């Protein structure tokens, strides 16, 4: 690769491949799996999704006779078994942010960008590696959560073949995968861990609440398009009136993630590291 024609100039005999999107993906996979914090945070997210449904089911079942009829009528067994999604969302979103801001905080980003000076492959690789990892793990956890939850619900349970159940279970994993990508994008845009997590919580959890103080017409027109509101349509079997349909809602949520990722690529390319 070096100009070997020049006499006296050093010529390396080390076998090296040019940097490619594939090799950067391998590198990002190693980065994700060689940090203890990744394993812990992922375990918290996946574990809560898989197990919280069982806990909710168990207590719902035990307290059923003391539950008011109105609440009994509103009870939705699929959502109960997937109740861990709120917790999983936080853990996975935070891990997505941390996957990037951890590099800025420690200075690792300078090593990463010296190895991959075209920079953008790093954005795509991080989103892909963390997105796919999240998809696989949360789909498994979502099914586990559903079955454990339904088992714990006993006579109040439903089957996976019941209306919308399969969509909700698969949709939960899909929703969390998009959250993962949004976390990565926010990490690149904001670069600090505290700021990134604040932005993530603000966008996913606080924004829908803030909207409640806006004029009713705004709430009706824009409310359904808020990221987490649109995204949750894919797994919510008792949607609020005016909500987007499951797949259009999920598509809107995906668009947010894509816009975020493009913004991340744009700022990474422009800024000094």
């Amino acid at each position, binding site marked *: 690769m070096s100009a070997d024609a020049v006499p006296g100039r050093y010529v390396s005999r080390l*076998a*090296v491949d040019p940097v490619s999107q594939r090799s950067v993906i391998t590198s990002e996979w190693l980065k994700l799996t060689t940090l203890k914090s990744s394993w812990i945070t992922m375990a918290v997210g996946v574990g809560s999704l898989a197990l919280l449904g069982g806990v909710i089911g168990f207590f719902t079942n035990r307290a059923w006779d003391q539950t008011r009829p109105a609440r009994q009528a509103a009870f939705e067994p699929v959502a109960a078994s997937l109740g861990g999604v709120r917790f999983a969302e936080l853990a996975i979103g935070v891990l997505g942010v941390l996957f990037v801001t951890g590099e800025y905080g420690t200075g690792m980003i300078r090593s990463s960008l010296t*190895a991959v000076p075209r920079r953008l492959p790093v954005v795509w690789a991080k989103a892909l590696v963390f997105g796919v990892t999240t998809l696989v793990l949360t789909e498994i956890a979502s099914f586990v959560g559903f079955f454990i939850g339904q088992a714990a619900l006993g006579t109040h349970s439903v089957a996976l073949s019941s209306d919308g159940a399969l969509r909700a279970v698969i949709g939960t994993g899909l929703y969390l995968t998009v959250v993962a990508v949004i976390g990565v994008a926010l990490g690149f845009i904001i670069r600090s861990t505290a700021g990134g997590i604040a932005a993530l919580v603000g966008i996913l959890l606080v924004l829908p609440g803030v909207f409640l103080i806006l004029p009713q017409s705004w709430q009706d027109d824009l409310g359904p398009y808020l990221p987490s509101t649109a995204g949750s349509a894919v797994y919510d079997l008792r949607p609020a009136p005016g909500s987007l349909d499951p797949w259009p809602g999920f598509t809107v949520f995906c668009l947010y993630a894509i816009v975020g990722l493009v913004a991340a690529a744009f700022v990474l390319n422009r800024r000094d*590291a």
Partner: protein
Amino acid sequence: MIQARGLSKKYGEKTAVDHLEFTVRPGIVTGFLGPNGAGKSTTMRMILGLDRPTEGSVTVDGKAYADLPAPLHEVGALLEARSVHTGRSAYNHLRVLAATHGIADSRVHEVIELVGLGDVARRRAGAFSLGMGQRLGIAATLLGDPGTLILDEPVNGLDPDGILWIRNLLKGLAGEGRTVFVSSHLMSEMSLTAEHLIVIGKGRLIADLPIAEMIGSASRASVLVRSPDAARLRELLAGPDVTVTSRQAGELEVVGMTAPQIGDIAAADGIAIHELTPHRASLEEAFMELTNDSIEFHGGTTVGAHDEAARGVA
């Protein structure tokens, strides 16, 4: 080979690097010297494509760094600021970098042994001492077996053993025909390692010369003479190319004449000499002389009103 042409960097209003022109050649260690804040680290970050030049360009072997297909194979860099994730082991840190270039695990082990981190390679890099961290940085630099090495203050935080190790390593690497570009703000260190010097101050190029020339050009040789009969000797020494100053009674500082010449003159007139010490300006002094006008941060020697005035000037 590193080539900078009109290389400039501004951070807002502040000019950190100002139209630098230089070429760093292979086969020798080139020292990059300048006082604190001169712009050395900024220049090096621009070579590596981490900071974007405001104006001008810099290339490695004729290409912008970002256009190198396998950058770690062409350029190895040790930055001033730490650039390792503290939660990862040294071994895994190097594996992560190796993966981007498809570099084999055997090479990772090789560089770990080379820098002497074999026993601690599985420990978290965050628990490393300054010196161990520096060695890990060197390992990363050598990972791709690059033809060009860029090191920002590599001896920072190293003990004398470590400094000697780096010095020999760099000379060895240059001896193999590699381009070695090392920054420092210590002239004395550079005089032991580098063959060529690029000196900058306030972002501007001050000197670009072989180190031997630097020593010759800036050293103002003088001779210190102590004699009970200094006043008479002073008259005898007077001449067109000779300046004699006296800081205290019985002591002369002579520029423009060698110690033997002075001794002969004194002997001829029977003047007693108690001391005759030739004094060459050290490299450190030569460097200070060179960069005196371009020091960013002058330290005050006294505290108080005087300091305020100094700050006003800077």
